[in-house]
């Protein structure tokens, strides 16, 4: 009973109301995120429709195998996150901590691969604004380098913004691990795990769209 009181904030009548409010709040935030990335996707749609060949050419400069591996890594991390929430629901503290750490690990693997990809682009002189040099020869389509520049700008803006969200997600999970370690969660109260899970899956969904739109434009 005393435990219930310590986790129930004063403005709520009961834990159920608190749980519903926090999940609804997270959903409202995720709607915001949908439109935040929506702005980027809109820009992408506009330029892809204007410069279809440049986008196809630009996509060939990306390594789809790395993209696919990263997609798989993120899906794995979503599974472990879902299992972490499930452990929290069932009040299993040790498996909760285990799955949270595993999710963090997979998130870090994703980010590590991303760093590798970015550094590869750096060596190829394909980072807009930093060291972009128009490529001497094109892989398939002969396009205006300026249009290729736009594709690469969107590639870095979109994946960069996604990576930023991943970094935030990993940091949030780190906090959760500490809280779980201290035994703050129970099957009665696990709202932070639940809403962090929602956020993590959302970031996964963004990548689910980014992968085919950036890496797989024209492979045939």
């Amino acid at each position: 009973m005393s435990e219930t009181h310590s986790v129930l904030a004063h403005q709520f009548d009961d834990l159920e109301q608190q749980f519903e409010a926090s999940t609804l709040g997270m959903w409202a935030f995720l709607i915001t995120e949908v439109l935040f990335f929506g702005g980027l996707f809109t820009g992408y749609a506009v330029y892809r429709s204007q410069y279809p060949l440049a986008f196809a050419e630009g996509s060939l400069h990306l390594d789809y195998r790395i993209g696919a591996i990263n997609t798989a890594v993120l899906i794995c991390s979503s599974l472990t996150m879902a299992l972490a929430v499930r452990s929290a629901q069932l009040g299993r503290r040790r498996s909760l901590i285990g799955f949270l750490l595993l999710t963090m690990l997979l998130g870090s693997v994703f980010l590590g691969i991303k760093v590798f990809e970015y550094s590869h682009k750096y060596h190829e002189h394909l980072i807009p604004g930093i060291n972009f040099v128009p490529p001497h020869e094109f892989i398939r389509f002969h396009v205006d380098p300026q249009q290729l520049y736009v594709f690469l700008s969107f590639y870095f803006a979109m994946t960069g913004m996604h990576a930023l969200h991943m970094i935030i997600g990993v940091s949030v999970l780190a906090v959760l691990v500490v809280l779980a370690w201290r035994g703050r969660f129970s099957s009665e109260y696990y709202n932070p795990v639940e809403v962090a899970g929602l956020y993590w899956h959302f970031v996964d969904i963004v990548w689910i769209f980014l992968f085919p739109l950036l890496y797989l434009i024209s492979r045939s």
Partner: protein
Amino acid sequence: MAHHVVPQKIYLLVFATLILLTLVTVDVAFYDLGLLNLYVALAIAVTKATIVILYFMHVKYSSRLVWVFVGSGFFWLAILLALTLSDFFTRGWSPLPSGWTSMIMP
């Protein structure tokens, strides 16, 4: 509190489906389907996203209010995309004044 605990089996099934669809979307990109490539890729992505939302994010087991929230997010995204593209896609429809054509770069 009686929150729905999703059986582990369902999570694993969802996971397998997502991995499978990832492989499909990679594979299908290597066939030349013209414009259809884009639509297939998007359809697979939407399917994957829906599965994640319904199962991993528990929307299938959530209140109608959450459904409305999720729906409205994507509805507003559709507004943003549709009305912005309505400009870019119809720009070519109206002929330019004859005097302008000489000013346009090739």
